């Protein structure tokens, strides 16, 4: 069943074309990784999907409904975490569900117990239950990003968008954040879009891959179709040796090695 439909999506900022006639369809529950160099339009695609930006031309339909403005069913995780530093991990997690409560009850944290359990459950999913009362500002980058994931989960979304969630993290934290993201997405049966520029991580975690170059979709396929030629095409002349193994049987093992080293 098609869940997300992107049809002729074009986004221009003045004269700059950030997305150029991008179309694809994604069935419910897929874990999609968006690949491309900086400036290829990954962020713009995700921000348009989230409703933060509106398309110049074309349409995005999620669950059959056009995406015009942000909706609670579509949650987003940001590269810069964008959690609230002055609040605790728990309060941040709880703030994902404010759309279900009124202004005063959300400000004074008077939500019902079910809502509060949901926030703690989300923190548990990302392995931060014991750190619930820590100020977010005092946490490490990886932990902050996991709080971001918890907040997105409390929103009870169907779609999870992650805009380079691990770009500012060290390899170890990146690996664990991606693990949590993947687990959360599988457990809750979420359709997930994640933009990445680390090919090794992408290959380890993705089902399906969409490649962008200069705002155009240049690749759309599943794991076994993601060959070294595709990567070369996406990233140009960079040295991909050691990042990628031609033989599909060894691919996972090889990328694992790179990711953990």
């Amino acid at each position: 069943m098609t869940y997300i439909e992107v049809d002729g999506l074009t986004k221009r900022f003045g004269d700059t074309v950030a997305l150029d006639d991008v179309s694809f369809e994604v069935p419910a529950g897929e874990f999609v990784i968006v690949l491309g160099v900086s400036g290829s339009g990954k962020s713009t695609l995700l921000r348009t999907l989230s409703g933060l930006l509106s398309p110049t031309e074309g349409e995005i339909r999620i669950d059959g409904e056009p995406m015009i403005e942000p909706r609670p069913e579509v949650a987003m995780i940001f590269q810069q975490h964008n959690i609230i530093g002055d609040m605790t991990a728990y309060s941040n997690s709880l703030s994902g569900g404010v759309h279900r409560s009124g202004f005063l009850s959300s400000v004074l944290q008077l939500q019902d117990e079910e809502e509060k359990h949901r926030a703690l459950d989300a923190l548990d999913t990302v392995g931060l239950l014991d750190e619930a009362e820590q100020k977010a500002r005092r946490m490490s980058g990886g932990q902050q990003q996991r709080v971001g994931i918890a907040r997105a989960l409390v929103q009870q979304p169907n779609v999870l968008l992650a805009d380079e969630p691990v770009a500012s993290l060290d390899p170890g934290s990146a690996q664990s954040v991606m693990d949590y993201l993947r687990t959360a997405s599988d457990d809750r049966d979420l359709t997930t879009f994640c933009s990445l520029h680390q090919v090794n991580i992408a290959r380890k975690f993705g089902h399906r891959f969409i490649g962008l170059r200069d705002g155009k979709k240049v690749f759309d396929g599943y794991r076994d179709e993601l060959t070294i030629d595709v990567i070369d095409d996406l990233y140009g002349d960079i040295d991909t040796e050691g990042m990628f193994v031609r033989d599909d049987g060894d691919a996972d093992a090889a990328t694992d090695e790179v990711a953990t080293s």
Partner: protein
Amino acid sequence: MTTDTTTSDGTVGSDAVDDEGSDVPNRIAEQFENIRQTRRRRALGWTGLLAFLAFATVQAFAATELLNPDARLETFTDSLTGFFPITRHFGVIPFLDFGQYVAFIRQENLLYDPEIGGLLFQFPPNLADIYAFFFLELGIFQIFGEAGITLAMGFVGTVLGFPFALVFGTLGSERVTPFPFNFIFRGTMSFIRAIPAIIWTLIFIPFLGLGPASAAIAIAFDTIGNLGRLFVDELEEIEDGPIEAMRTTGASKPQIVFFGMLSQVRTAFIAWTLYIFEINVRIGVTVGVIGAGGLGYVLTSQQNLLRFTEMMATLLAIFLLIISVELFSQRLRSRLRSDDVEMGIWELIAGFPRRMADSMLK
């Protein structure tokens, strides 16, 4: 030039050949000349500006009658001996007679009101009196006598002004209220700021009479203008990230403002409020001068009686009040801003001598 090394090398080489005679290559000499000219122009500009400033200053001196002042140095030196009463120890060594200050401060209850303080400090403690102190006499400001009244004016002004400043400051931000409409709130605050607190007191005198009540309300008004303005400025500095994040959660507009914006500036808002409280206590002194009570009023009445020693004693009390408020507020602000583990109250007091010694040795 750096993209193609061969041409770059070639150019450098030919430059060197061109300037075989002098030591300095053309390009460097040219740039040097450019810099010299820019500096010369800048020096000329600064000289012109300074000349204009001097000219304007002379005119301002004339306007303030400082060019031809009606100076009475003798009267001033006379008043100084009033300000600083001198006694002679053993009939010879001159000393500042601090005792006169203390006597006046005690006589007029400038810093401590023994009638109210007596309820609290007695041995053995009397529970009924302690109850009376807190709940009947409402004495926690009044125990400080005249200084307490001034302090209370600043405190009430800050407490009453804060919620309005918060509302006006938030709604005055362009991110919350779209462009032309936010000027309704910014304009109101500008108008309030245009009128000093002392004038606001005059405006409220017909309403509440000449006394601390109108002063407190005037200070509250002043707080809306000044604190609200600081809030607006602070909100200009916030990051877009958390706002976007709250938008994607599907939060309502007021929720986006609270979680995405205000939560980013909470610490800064508290710090600014403490800063305005400091200023408000100072304003409490100035509005006292026109008769609204507290230390300012004592000061002006002694001045009217030309009792300079008593005036100086009052100034001393004012100094003590302001310094204590500043110390308190600055300690609190620096603690709010620091990420360190907070010091307990006890450690704050008991560790003071050691920290003081540490800072003096630095």
